[in-house]
Every structure is written in C-alpha cells, then in structure tokens.
C-alpha cells in the first residue's frame, strides 16, 4: 500500500505522519510537496497537522484553495482513503470535503496534552481495529479545534454515524464533543487529535497504531486477490 503525506508550506507534523506510516506500519510512504501534481499512484492521502500557509486567513483556508486540492478531491471521489489530522482536518473542512468549520478554542488557549477519546464508530476503514466505545489516548495540540456545525448538519452526522471520535472531557468546546468525523461515503476522515504522535509507548501512548493498521488492513482486504 502506498501513502502520500502532503506537505504544505507550514506543515509541521508531516515527519511524524511519515514516521507512523513508514517506520511503524512499514508501508511505502512518500512526503509529497504540495506543488507536485501527480497523486495517481497513491492509495491513501494523509494531510498532516501544522500551520499551512501560516493559517494567515483562517486555519486551512489557503491550503484548501491550492492546486493539489483538486487532485485530492478526485482521489476522494474515487472512494480512496483521505485522512486529515489537526490542520489537515481544518483543510478538509475549508475544502468542503467534510461539513462544519473550526472556531477558536473556547478558552482561547493553545492546548497541547494527552486527551482521552471515545471510538464511537469502529465500523470505518480507519477504526476497524478498535473496539466500539473503546476509550483511547491521543495528544491534542491546537488553538482552533472548536468544531462547529449547525443543528441540521449535526443531526445528519448523528443519523449517518459520521461522528467517529468524541472527547471524554471536551477540552475546546466542540459541538457534541466531536473530535473526528467521516464523510457519508466513509473514505474521508478528519480529526483534531494526533494518532501519529501516539504510535510508541515512549511517546506516552501507542493507541494510534491501530488507526494506521485499520487503513492498511481494509485496503488489503479489498485489493489483494485471493490466490
């Protein structure tokens, strides 16, 4: 399986994402500069955290208008996996690949610590290795992670089981404790917490490994032809 980690000017979790996919999961992984326009050979796209374009206008808004987004949208439309973490999630929202928007954290502070999360939906290609309602620990690191959507969108997210992760102790004020959501088709996941920073005990948690394993296992199941 081949992963692309898209690197925008200002991405700063790209190496962590690369480390998780390449060194921990041991899959073929490339760091792909945002001006590179060919993503055809990749099976999954990973949008890392950071401050793309310095978050100059709104978090993720400038990256969402960059040329490579057209290809990412095409890749998503084909049903291939796209995972956006932190700034990657903000980019997916700004690009309209996921519904909603981000507000400043309710306490206005940048927060960086381990946070307990619940796996609300384990029937996705990103979470199938987790038990339903498992409580896991990932770090968060964001100033604008206060997920907002209107009531109608929230109802839709709930009815379609699109809420994948919730905070146990909502740190930023997100609507309905939402920490991560998936699109209706089930192949685009955005989340604020960082599974790629929770892949070794040394880092305080290895709960993130199962997320990357889920992607690979699901890909293998649908792509490896039985002999």
């Amino acid at each position, binding site marked *: 399986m081949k992963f692309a980690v898209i690197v925008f000017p200002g991405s700063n979790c790209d190496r962590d994402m690369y480390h998780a996919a390449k060194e921990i999961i041991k899959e073929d992984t490339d760091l792909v500069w945002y001006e590179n326009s060919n993503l055809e050979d990749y099976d999954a796209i990973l949008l890392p955290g950071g401050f793309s374009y310095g978050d100059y*206008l*709104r978090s993720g*808004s400038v990256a969402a*208008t960059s040329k490579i987004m057209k290809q990412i949208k095409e890749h998503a439309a084909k049903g291939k996996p796209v995972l956006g973490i932190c700034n990657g999630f903000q980019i997916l*929202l*700004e690009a309209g690949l996921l*519904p*909603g*928007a981000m*507000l*400043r*954290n*309710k*306490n*206005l502070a940048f927060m960086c610590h381990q946070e307990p999360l619940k796996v609300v939906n384990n029937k996705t290609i990103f979470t199938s290795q987790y038990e339903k309602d498992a409580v896991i620990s990932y770090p968060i690191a964001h100033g604008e992670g*206060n997920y*907002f*959507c*209107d009531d109608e969108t929230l109802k839709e997210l709930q009815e379609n089981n699109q809420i994948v992760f919730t905070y146990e102790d909502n740190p930023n*004020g997100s609507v309905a404790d939402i920490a991560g959501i998936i699109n209706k088709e089930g192949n685009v996941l955005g989340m604020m917490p960082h599974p790629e920073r929770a892949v070794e005990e040394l880092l305080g948690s290895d709960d993130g490994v199962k997320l990357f394993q889920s992607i690979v296992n699901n890909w293998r199941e649908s792509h490896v032809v039985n002999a």
Partner: protein
Amino acid sequence: MKKVTVYITLKQGVLDPQGKAIQTSLHSLGYEEVQEARVGKFIELQIDDKEDLDARINAMCDQLLANPVIEDFRFDVEEAVQS
C-alpha cells in the same frame, strides 16, 4: 479603480470566544453596561472596475475571504482615491 471594504463577522448564535474575553475585560474595567462584544475582521481591496463587480466580490467572499459556515459578510464599494 474601486475601493472595496469587506466586513466579516461571526454569525449570530456562533460562539465568539474572543468577543467573550473582551466583554469580560471591559467588565473588569468597570464598563458593566457592555452586554456583548463580538470580534470580526475587515479587509480592504483595491479593485479594477469590471462588469459584474458585485457578483465577483460576492464570489471572492464565498470562496475565500469568509467561511459561510460560521461567518457573515457584507461589503461597501466606493471610488478609490487616486494619489
């Protein structure tokens, strides 16, 4: 040449943490009469006059300058003062 001023504000009903912080600070300065503070931004553009100017500015706001999920926008167009 036109000068366009775009005003962007959070929609009513959307939590404005910065506004809340400002309100609290104003109260602590003794301005108890402040019932609400809301923070927005304003963007000035110098634009070559073009047909469909309003429609184009609307599209700019929709596509980039504002996020319609959480923000409202309005804009004024006036003649730019040539220096």
